[in-house]
């Protein structure tokens, strides 16, 4: 594997990692809003 290819894989993995953290945060924010929404009903 060339250095460029290895760097590409690492960069892809890092982007995926960031995406996953963001996805988790979004999911839990939505769930918190869901709690507050139910409280307002």
């Amino acid at each position: 594997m060339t250095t460029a290819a290895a760097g590409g894989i690492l960069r892809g993995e890092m982007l995926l990692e960031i995406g996953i953290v963001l996805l988790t945060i979004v999911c839990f924010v939505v769930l918190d809003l869901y709690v507050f929404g139910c409280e307002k009903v």
Partner: protein
Amino acid sequence: MTATGWLQAIIFFLIVLALTKPLGSYMARVFEGERTLLSPVLVPVEKLIYRICGVREDEEMTWYAYALSMLAFSLIGLGYLYVLLRTQKWLPFNPQHVDNMPPDLAWNTAVSFTTNTNWQFYSGETAMSYLSQMAGLAWHNFVSAAVGIAIAVAVVRGLVRTNVKTLGNFWVDLTRCSLYVLLPISIVVGLFLVSQGMPQNFHAYQSVKSIEGFAQTITGGPMASQEVIKELGTNGGGFVNANSASPNENPTPLSNLIEILLIFSLGAGLTYMYGKMVKDTRQGWAIFTAMAILFFSCFVVAYWAESAGNPIVHQLGVNGGNMEGKECRFGVAASSLFATVTTDTSCGAVNSMHDSFTALGGLIPLVDMQLGEIVFGGVGSGLYGMIVFVVLTVFIAGLMVGRTPEYLGKKVERREVQFAILAALVTPVLCLVPTSIAAVLPAGLATLNNNGPHGFSEILYAFTSTNANNGSAFAGLGPNLFYNLLTGVNMMFGRFAVAVPALALAGALAGKKAVPESFGTFSTRSGIFVALLIGVIVIVGALTFLPADSLGPIVEHLLMLQGNTF
């Protein structure tokens, strides 16, 4: 179908019945803060945990504080497991030198175990270090089960209490459940499973030569300690890929019986605990009866379908039941029983491969999950899911007779019905919408191993199982980025989007005053109520999922009768 097969199911159920009252009474004492047999040993430990964590035992929470605590605890647990799986290569207890898990798979696994689903897109023997198995997965097996039971207890308090806004303390319920209920049973039964031949060690895998002269790798590891909570907490994630079909995870017929008993025991006990806490055990037995009728109805169909086998195979001169994907030592009866029990609850452990069941045999696990895992159900989630259906049933009964519906002396009004409907809608929406998306996108079809209706069944099963927090699979569906992320989101909302309205429902009911029963009050302990409750459950499940099931297992069965397989 054989007499021995029926006897297995009947003996199993009689033992469940015998365990229901003692377990339920014990849990009622634990959650009402009364003294138990284990108090002299465990009270000091409990107090120490509260001191370390800064928990005030007497502090009560409103339903939304309870819900937010549950969400915060789950988020931290998810993050912890994700980091553990991403760094396991550099951590101790890794004799097989297992590599770090890729990000999307680690996330899917972390969500899966946090939500009590235990959906596994990996093979435990090749993808998990012993540390990840013990400190990650087994830990989640305990706490995710305790979270489910804590929510159920809070919902029951909502029905019992009057004119208050609080449902208890999440941290206290979580601690008591783990300490007094899950740990003691796990220690005793775990040692028993070791006596049956289940491994409990830190050795590296053994390479041996088999009788046929082939090289074979024998897995080891801390299996028994994880196996017991896997079933007791209705988690279901196997230490190895073959789960309870593996001789290591299920060595003997007795261990098989113990495992299915563990799966049902707490769910059944919680119905009696419910009756004790609402001061009318007949209410609990009414729910138990509805669950038992649904269980036997499903088992009969699964056992019949698997015993009847596949007519195409019969034409080849191989008669008898369907043995594809089944352990010879368990056979058709014990495999059908295990499959029904594991999908009635949100366990998902398997001792046979559901993907290899006949079309109608495979339909039963699907239907079990589509009903919302309320037939004894996931620990805790089964009870609060059933209470949601009870509220819908008394509402419908109220409409029939033209009275304001009541349950346990509380008037069920617009707000309560809104929460119940919201909780009941989560299952079909989160099951059918992602299935339809996956069935048309190239990424959703890329990892399918089967075509036609069976391929569709595999997709439908994946989203039904993840949404219902079951975790069993039609294993013909392989992982990719699309499935890792979509099933992960599905598991998260399948768990919490039902728990939140259930808690909101409890909060609404706790604030009401109780009115005494009158002549016109619809009895919720009668046979008529049980029949009506089953009717509501079946109609909601059948009407919502029948079109999807028709495109999958039902069409597959009809085509099988014409000589086509997939």
